[in-house]
């Protein structure tokens, strides 16, 4: 590490402590955090949920939720002054001018009742004393620089008329318009799809170079860190556990926490040389793959919105979707938000009724089943959801939740039922005495284990897993994925694994189907599809994934012309490798 000179520091934070709540229930969110930010550098503050990474930055600008969190101690020197000791008027003058901020939720971070123009110009008028005309000219220039077409006409639009990615661009335009010294970006791409994320990250990097801004990037995503950061501060439970250049932290992490965190991050390409997911049990039970467990053909579903007066065509959530799934196999359905991947999972379980198509599960024609026989058929197919907390009835104990499907399907009753439940708890890595607790008393990972135990109860052959780990921290995600692999291999389960995360998909699946706007555009063995993608969309999707390795920079994102993309019926380009023509 080269010598760092104090005079180069734009911002230096010393001994910052932030606490939550008051009195006896007070909690330290940030403890004695110190770091320096050099001119023109990107400093990533990385940590899992509850690490205090966001709180520490909100505290700098006096933006902590009033009455909820307070700064206890610390200094933050900026321009020779202490941000934390400044009177309100002075910090207000700095905020949004010299130090600006962008947030995680582009959908809710803009005021819905004010025009984009109003929201872009008001800061310039207040801080730079510009006239309305000057401010509008600058705003149009900024909208252009964040690469939104027709910048002038955007001024009169309202936020709801723009997509999430566009709104985040507007937020960036707003934050950069005053040519700030420091930009604090709080999880700026977490709510965005991976292809949009790649564009936003590229944009931030370019703007940083042009404007010479220093960036504090708060994120949980090691891929984003590797791609963006010059230096890294790793936080855990309110404390800084490690600090260093991005190369040093990734190559030679000193602290155990950092090592574990890095080890838990799935890296796309780690399994490029194997065709199957890693074997994690001694004697895997591999059912005959020649048979079919799930067979879906021509599934079509249109969601209509609006009332009877509506001329709205609705959204085509599934358009001619078809695939097969063998027993003991994992088929991953990957795609971005709105691709129809969740709809497909639900359609297989008949949680939604499709408009057209055939679904066979375990030899049964799902669409022909009556209500009663459908309920019976659900014994062989269970589901795991994205948000484990919300998918557990808050008024039932964990034990009752796990017992419920077994009771419904008459798997067991009485003391046998509770014995089996206890066994399931142990099976998924929980303790039997956890049965009496309620969902809110568990951690996120434990809740997902409860969900898995619940799904296992009736002895299913198929589990539809809808983004089962995307609400979890990365270290917890690794454990849950391991558990799922272990269960599959010892019980011979088939997974329909719905995910947006390419690296997770690579680790978990035998075969992959890529969905885009309701259609499968590419499908085949995982190794073939990920190593040799043929469809333009698959290529873009793979190229957009940030690589958690600072030595391997992501390539230039190919420009994707969505309208010119082939979306016709699937044709076989190689053995079992299907691509939309």
């Amino acid at each position, binding site marked *: 590490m080269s010598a760092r000179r104090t005079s180069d520091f734009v911002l230096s934070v010393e001994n910052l402590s932030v606490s939550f709540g008051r009195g006896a229930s007070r909690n330290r969110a940030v403890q004695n955090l110190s770091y320096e930010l050099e001119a023109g550098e990107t400093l990533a503050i990385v940590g899992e949920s509850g690490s205090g990474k966001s709180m520490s930055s909100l505290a700098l600008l006096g933006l902590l939720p009033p009455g909820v969190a307070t700064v206890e101690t610390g200094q933050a020197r900026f321009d020779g002054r202490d941000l934390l000791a400044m009177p309100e008027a002075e910090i207000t003058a700095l905020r949004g001018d010299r130090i600006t901020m962008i947030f995680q939720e582009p959908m809710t971070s803009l005021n819905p009742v004010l025009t984009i123009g109003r929201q872009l110009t008001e800061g310039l008028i207040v801080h730079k004393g510009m006239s309305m005309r000057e401010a509008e000219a600058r705003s149009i220039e900024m909208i252009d620089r964040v690469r939104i077409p027709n910048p002038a006409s955007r001024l009169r639009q309202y936020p709801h008329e723009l997509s999430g990615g566009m709104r985040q661009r507007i937020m960036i335009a707003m934050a950069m318009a005053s040519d700030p010294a420091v930009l604090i970006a709080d999880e700026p791409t977490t709510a965005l799809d991976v292809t949009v994320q790649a564009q936003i990250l590229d944009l931030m990097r370019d703007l940083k170079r042009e404007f010479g801004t220093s960036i504090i990037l708060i994120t949980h995503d090691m891929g984003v860190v590797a791609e963006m950061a010059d230096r890294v501060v790793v936080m855990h439970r309110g404390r800084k556990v490690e600090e260093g250049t991005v190369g040093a932290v990734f190559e030679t992490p000193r602290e155990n926490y950092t090592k574990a965190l890095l080890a838990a991050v799935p890296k796309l390409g780690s399994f490029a040389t194997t065709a199957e997911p890693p074997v994690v049990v001694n004697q895997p039970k591999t059912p005959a793959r020649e048979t079919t467990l799930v067979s879906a053909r021509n599934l079509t579903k249109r969601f209509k919105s609006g009332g009877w007066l509506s001329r709205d065509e609705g959204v085509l959530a599934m358009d001619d979707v078809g695939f097969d799934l063998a027993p003991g196999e994992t088929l991953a359905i990957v795609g971005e938000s709105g691709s129809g991947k969740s709809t497909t999972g639900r359609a297989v379980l008949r*949680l939604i009724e499709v408009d057209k198509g055939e679904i066979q599960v375990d030899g049964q024609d799902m669409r022909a089943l009556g209500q009663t026989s459908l309920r019976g058929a659900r014994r062989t197919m269970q589901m795991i959801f994205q948000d484990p907390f919300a998918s557990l009835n808050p008024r*039932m104990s964990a034990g009752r939740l796990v017992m*419920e499907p077994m009771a419904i399907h008459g798997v067991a009753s009485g003391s046998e039922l509770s014995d089996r439940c206890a066994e399931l708890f142990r099976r998924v890595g929980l303790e039997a005495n956890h049965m009496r607790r309620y*969902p809110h008393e568990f951690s996120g990972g434990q809740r997902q284990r409860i969900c898995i135990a619940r799904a296992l109860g009736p002895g299913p052959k198929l589990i539809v897993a809808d983004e089962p780990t995307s609400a979890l921290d990365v270290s917890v995600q690794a454990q849950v994925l391991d558990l799922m692999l272990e269960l599959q291999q010892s019980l011979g389960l088939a997974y329909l694994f719905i995910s947006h995360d390419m690296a997770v998909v690579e680790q978990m699946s035998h075969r992959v189907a890529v969905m885009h706007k309701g259609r499968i555009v590419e499908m085949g063995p995982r190794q073939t599809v990920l190593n040799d993608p043929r469809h333009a969309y698959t290529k873009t999707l793979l190229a957009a994934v940030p690589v958690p390795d600072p030595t391997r920079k992501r390539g230039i994102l190919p420009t994707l012309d969505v309208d010119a993309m082939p979306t016709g019926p699937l044709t076989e380009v190689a053995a079992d490798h299907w691509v939309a023509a």
Partner: protein
Amino acid sequence: MATTVEAIASPRSTGFLRSLLKSPTGVIGLIIVLILILAAALAPWIAPYDPLRMGAGPRFQPPSLAHWFGTDDFGRDVFSRIVYGARLTLQIGVIAVGISLTSGLLLGLVAGYAGAWAERILMRLVDVLFSFTEIVIALACLAILGIGLTNAMIAIGIASIPFYARVTHSIVLVEKGKPYFEAGIAAGAGHIRMIFLHLLPNVIPTLIVVGTLGISTAVLAAAGLSFLGLGAQPPQPEWGFMLSSSRDLISRAPWMMIFPGMAIAITVLGFNLLGDGIREILDPRQVTR
């Protein structure tokens, strides 16, 4: 009644009373409601006079040691009448809310759970009734049934059904949209199990809050109808009716107006505070996740 009602999702029935006792709002509300219940239960022992006995003292006596709240135009003891009035007030609250809560719950639950055309028709109808306003529905009911305190209770109960149906419906919609509901269906649960094991336990807590607040609305409404002469009839010791008979005697015997009014206000306040207190406990934002 015009309180914003949010769906409340929360666990822990254990320690409920303990948490209630920690909220100042809840404690005051609970005390007031308990006093009301005690007054109603022990009226014959608390009240110094027969509430209906005329000439228990001289007419128009101002408050004194013998007659704490004074006497009315017939020489009846106002304090005794107010104590006995607690019985009528409780009865009104329980009967009116009982009618509206059960019918509203049923309507809202059926509409929300069934969805499709049943929901559209039922909720459209509820919306229409809702726009009549409760007082007009109550007046219509009284026009049909005839005046009297029992009919007034029924009328108020009927008049509030649209409100409870709407509240239940909106909670059901919120709960139905949560993944645990889908998880129940995916597990293979039938309608009975979905409604009684999954939906109802998550709907009822909010309805307890709404019902508690609703008692105060019902008490107010019944007192209002009695004040107008459409509810309680002489010589019932009903607070609203006592107020209406005080109207023309305000300058002569202001205590006839002040004490019954205070009794109504404190009772209503009690149920409002209790409802707010319960809501505070059940508020999802206070649940540690």
